[in-house]
């Protein structure tokens, strides 16, 4: 029983660490703000969440200490990380950061016209 628990704790820790590493790689390798944001807002979320989950499981199952703050932290990260990613990429676009040269489509530049047509 406790071996299985230890296996899961270690598994979550390794996955969390690996995903954080992939986030860092993505930030270095990907070409522009928006694609980097993909890496940062997804992998970092799940990476930090699984590390927190492993911490929670460790203290609960090995020491019998139920720390509800870790659960709250998981929920807060789950809710706030995508909003942060959205806001950063929106601010980048509105302040005129260019997309990557190989981007094939940009519907957002039609937004002003769309608003003008539908505003009356």
């Amino acid at each position: 029983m406790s071996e299985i628990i230890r296996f899961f704790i270690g598994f979550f820790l390794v996955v969390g660490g690996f995903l954080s590493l992939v986030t860092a790689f993505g930030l270095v390798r990907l070409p522009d703000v928006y694609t980097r944001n993909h890496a940062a807002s997804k992998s970092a979320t799940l990476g930090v969440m699984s590390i927190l989950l492993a911490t929670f499981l460790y203290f609960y199952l090995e020491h019998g200490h139920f720390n509800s703050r870790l659960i709250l932290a998981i929920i807060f990260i789950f809710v706030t990380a995508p909003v942060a990613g959205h806001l950063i990429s929106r601010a980048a676009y509105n302040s005129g950061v260019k997309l990557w040269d190989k981007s094939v489509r940009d519907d957002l530049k039609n937004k002003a016209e769309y608003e003008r047509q539908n505003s009356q």
Partner: protein
Amino acid sequence: MAFQILLNFFLAFVWMFLSVSFTSQSFIIGFLLGLLVIFAFRRFFNSRFYLLRVAAVISLFFLFLKELILANIAVLKTVLKPKMDFQPGIFALPTELQTDWEITLLANLITLTPGTLVMDVSYDNKILYVHAIDIPDADQAIDEIKNSFEKAIMEVSR
């Protein structure tokens, strides 16, 4: 929905007062009995029986979790691929959802899905501008988002 939950709590308290035992066990018994009563009288409420909506919320949560894991595998593949041969772009996604919280929920779900990230919402709440990491599957992505997420959110808000 909130009214039904409040009514259920009220019925549980009535049960505690009727049986003169103020423990959490009698509260739970009263709550389950109140649930039966509300189920029996469901045609007098103007919204659905609220447990259905609770079930829809739970299934939406699991959809969220599943998409988060799939998204991570997709990002992993993109980042660790030796050649950068994907084609990013921004596409417009028309949505039928109307209230603000539904749109927020949909935007969060899309941001956590494989290869998509919400960039902007038009002022009339009808179009979401989504940045996709690989645009050739964009049309397919629109269909999938429409079929799975929008439906799940409508299931909650109906």
